């Protein structure tokens, strides 16, 4: 894929994500088609290897993964779509968009595991919505460190 085509496709995907509300991203339909789940898992396995040995390809691969997720729905490996595409946006300087996808990936990751991270997820959201908690949370962290 040429660099200009890649950039055009990233812009197009950014527009798709921008047009979706947070609620809609967090409550996307699941896809239970075994073939699709397997395909997405294959992409996830590949991207984790590519991340180390050929990082230049992470951009196009993550774009393909998020295209699939947005078009066909959530699979167990969908958090990777959000997190890898988010890391590309962060590297491009689109920090707010990247953070939105990062939070989305954590949310889906937790839901998929029936909230085994629930105890962490709850303060995480409280932390974001409540600045006072943010302060206390960090003080607590520092106290623990100290």
């Amino acid at each position, binding site marked *: 894929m040429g660099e200009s085509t890649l950039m055009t496709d990233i812009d197009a995907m950014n527009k798709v994500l921008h047009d979706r509300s947070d609620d809609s991203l967090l409550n996307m339909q699941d896809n239970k088609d075994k073939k699709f789940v397997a395909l997405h898992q294959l992409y996830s396995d590949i991207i984790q290897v590519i991340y180390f040995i050929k990082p230049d390809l992470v951009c196009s691969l993550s774009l393909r993964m998020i295209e699939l997720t947005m078009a066909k729905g*959530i699979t167990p490996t969908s958090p*990777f779509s959000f*997190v890898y595409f988010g890391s590309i946006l962060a*590297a491009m300087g689109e920090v707010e968009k990247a*953070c939105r*996808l990062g939070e989305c990936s*954590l949310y889906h*990751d937790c839901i998929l595991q029936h909230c085994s991270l629930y105890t962490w997820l709850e303060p995480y959201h409280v932390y974001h919505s409540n600045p006072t908690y943010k302060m206390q949370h*960090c003080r607590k962290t520092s106290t623990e*460190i100290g």
Partner: protein
Amino acid sequence: MVDENASSSKYKPMVILICYNAILFHSEPLQSTAEAHHIGYKAGQQLGDFLTSRWNLQLSITMNYLAGQNLRAVQATIKDDYVKMMKDEKSAFFFGYILLHTQVIALQQGLHTLHAGRVEKLIPSEAELLAKDNSNLIVQIVSKINKLERSILFQQFSSNLLDELNISGTIAEMKMQPRPLLYMGIFYEGLTCFLCSIGITDPTKSKSLIERGQSVLTRIRSLAEHSSWNWENKVLLLEAMEMHTMGNLDAAGPLYTSSIGSAHEHKFIHEEAVASELAGEYMYEQGNHSDAYALFMHSIKCFKEWGADAVAKRVEMSVQTKFGANVSHLRAVNVSDAMARILSFDQQQQQKKKRSLV
């Protein structure tokens, strides 16, 4: 929602790792990032993903170090995990531990440890690591960042330091993905540019250093837009240094005190120490010796609290050189009262600013 699926949970440590190390550190406090990586570490242990688990642990230790965790705690965690790692023969991340361990020991015991071989029998020194493998880009850049940090903390700047250790240039050239440690390197580079420019008599060289510092300041300001928690005190310190070097001394004072206040509020004890020392230098230059003395004493207290005993000793020596034996009248200064007065001035300034904005 998707039913619970055995394969879904195995990615949790990796998602946490990439998410925090590449994205969310932009908006989350460094302390929370360290905590999140620790959760990733535990998740990896439970799932049997030892590689990602260990990577998360190493990032958690690094984030804690950057957030100003006590150095004794950092050193103990490194030693513990390094020994375990060598037992397991899973040594993929050994270099990160070696570099951080060397840095921590140097800050605790002094720069002579860098050339003294192994301080801990089990953990190789940075010199050994670099002699063995100097082609690894990450090793090179982390080593450079550590060297720059040591130069600031021990106030030892060689003439070609900034040419040797061009962190922002290397990051741009190698197209490295943004990471908290790399941004810290850029911050140290900016600080070094301003610090070096103070002592330089050649106006052209001094101007180019200030310009380089200003470009770093612009970059750090853009980070503070997303997380004032992590970057506000650093921006204020760089701004203070900028004003100081450009001769705008009236503007520099409040910025120094704001930086100390912000570092204190956000629990960055090590940066509070650095800002206090630099503010002390500024006050000393202004002839305000009692405030300068209080700031130096506060800096020493913060460095000791952080665990950087060798750095605290260096500041003590510098105080002795500056004030000589004649400090009896300064010893009467109540440091905490003086600090409260200096910082309350900053709060008044901030309230004024807020009122004018309203």
